[in-house]
């Protein structure tokens, strides 16, 4: 599949996705249906342990769904061409997927060696520069702050020039400057006609999203956020009780 798909049209559809553990005894995702379009940022909210990370890891191709389908521009790519599908996905998990003993440059080299993008160009004037990664290129990951690690994780995730970015609580425990930098980058990513899915609890990220969904009882419920944080908290509490 051509990467240029992003510039024309892009629709991600999740149809009746189900995921259960312990031979079907524990149903985490019951019936997930979602449609995301070009240039859209979708926020997924929900209580801790409701299945947000599971949903994102299924979309990233790390875990397999029990049933259901994921369509990209109407094609069931997940099952037919997993490799091609994976190349379109950038995934940033909660835990930073980095080699602690090596520096930022080495970590980037791992993911950029097979990338259509040039690491040098990206560091000089591309999105890696936008994320401020050149500032700490030679610092070993183990000596980095949480913000640096998160930015580097995003930098590594977008190495394949993806058109769908999956972020699992990207702003957790980050300072305002770092959050600002990530937000600027995400705005730019969205502006290019890409899709972003964020699992979050952060108000700032919630405000950044175009549409919000609450994951409750394994089902995604549309949520209209009007800026009332108490209303949102109530909804999440309801979600937690229903687990």
């Amino acid at each position, binding site marked *: 599949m051509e990467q240029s798909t992003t510039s024309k049209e892009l629709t991600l559809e999740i149809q009746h996705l189900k995921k259960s*553990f*312990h031979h079907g005894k*524990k149903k985490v995702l019951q019936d997930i249906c979602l449609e995301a379009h070009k240039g859209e940022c979708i926020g997924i909210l929900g209580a801790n342990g409701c299945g947000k990370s*599971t949903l994102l*890891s299924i979309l*990233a*191709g*790390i*875990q397999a769904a029990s049933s259901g389908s994921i369509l990209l521009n109407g094609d069931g790519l997940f099952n037919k061409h997993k*490799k091609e599908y*994976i190349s379109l*996905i950038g*995934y940033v*998990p*909660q*835990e*930073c*997927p*980095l*080699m602690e*003993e*090596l520096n930022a440059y*080495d970590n980037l*080299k*791992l*993911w950029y*060696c*097979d990338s259509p993008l040039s690491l040098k160009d990206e560091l000089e004037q591309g999105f890696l520069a936008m994320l401020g990664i050149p500032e700490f290129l030679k610092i070993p990951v183990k000596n980095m702050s949480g913000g640096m690690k998160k930015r580097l994780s995003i930098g*590594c995730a977008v190495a394949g020039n993806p058109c769908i970015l999956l972020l699992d609580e990207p702003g957790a425990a980050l300072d305002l400057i770092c959050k600002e930098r990530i937000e600027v980058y995400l705005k730019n990513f969205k502006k290019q006609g890409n899709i972003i899915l964020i699992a979050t609890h952060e108000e700032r990220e919630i405000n950044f999203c175009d549409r919000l969904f609450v994951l409750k009882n394994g089902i995604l419920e549309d949520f209209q956020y009007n800026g009332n944080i108490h209303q949102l908290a109530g909804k999440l509490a309801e979600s937690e009780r229903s687990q």
Partner: protein
Amino acid sequence: MKTWKQYILLETKRMLKSLPGVCLGSLLLTACLIGIFTLFQLNSSRQESKSSPVDIGIVAKKDEPFIDWMITTAEKIDNAKYTCRFQRLEEKAADAKLKSGKIDMVFLIPENYIASIINGENKHLTIRFGNSQSTIVSFLFRELSHAASAFILDTEAGIYSMQEYYEKHRLPDKAEDELDLNLQYIKEIVSLEKGIQTEEIATEDTTPLFQQYLVSALVLFLFFRGLACSKILAVQNRAFQDKLAQKGIGYPQQILARGIAFFITALASYLFLFILAGTIMAVSPLSIPNTICTTVRGVWEFAFRCIPILLLSTSFIQLAYEITEDSMGGILFLFFSILAMGLCSGCFYPRSYLPQALQAAAPLFPVWQACRYGLSALQGSFHAPSFLYMAGCLALCFFFMALRRRYCAHIQTHI
């Protein structure tokens, strides 16, 4: 494939960064091993000088007849001339010397012992041993004294039967005949070689103990070196593993990549070790006779031939940290498993010392096969069965590691 190759390169770079620490740990380990071997060597050579000849204390009354004659006679016997050293002592002094290990055994001669033998009285000679620092020689003496005791008792039984026979049939010259018989008996004992003939036959060509211990030391060193590798073999976080898997580098490939990187790192320090050994051999007259290691070139040939052992050891070390997923757990697993394998495989002493059941099971342990392979390599030959066994163990290690990672991934997704 490109990402996998890059991953191997980066893992190697990461591990090589920790190489100084690993080398330092290995150096400490080597120093400990050399220290233990030196102590053992010193101790055994001290014991050897002490037991060759064996120091025997003779405790008897000062005016005990025939004792000096008996000692002189014993010292003149060919078999005892170079192996025993007799000294007359007081009982207290003899016990003190026995306790301090200055003598190996004490003969306690009862009063009028020789006369009692001649007269057919039943007086017992006591041989006293110290229960610590037992040597093979003192052990043999102990066993021999038991055998001699049984021999004497049997002979005495014969003499008593003769006495009964004389009494029953009221035969004359009983005392004279008995005396004559006893004297003949003593004469027989003194010149036992007439009664027991000893012969020697050429045994099969066995590997000298020194070579066995040398190879065992190398094998144990290669395995125990893993204790210093907890940092470089710490399991990567799950997110990183998952991301690699997402990019098409599955769990078995990840394990293999780490295995290759660890092998390269271990090879670097292994070569350093042999550079050191080669340099020492080049500047000193040291060499291992009757092996290929008589020249520096031979040492390098041996190093090259032993690479399969290095491969086995690195995969076993990796397995330890992979299945425990914890540094301390890995260290403990390695330490106890290698110790147990070493003990059961005759790395610390010859296999013939082991219980029968373990002797049969010893070849099942990879360490035993590694030692056997190493011994062949030391002779410049190739032991194909051991090589194949080690290759099988290597494959098993990777299989278990891949299984463990898959299981962990499964567990993780079930939480």
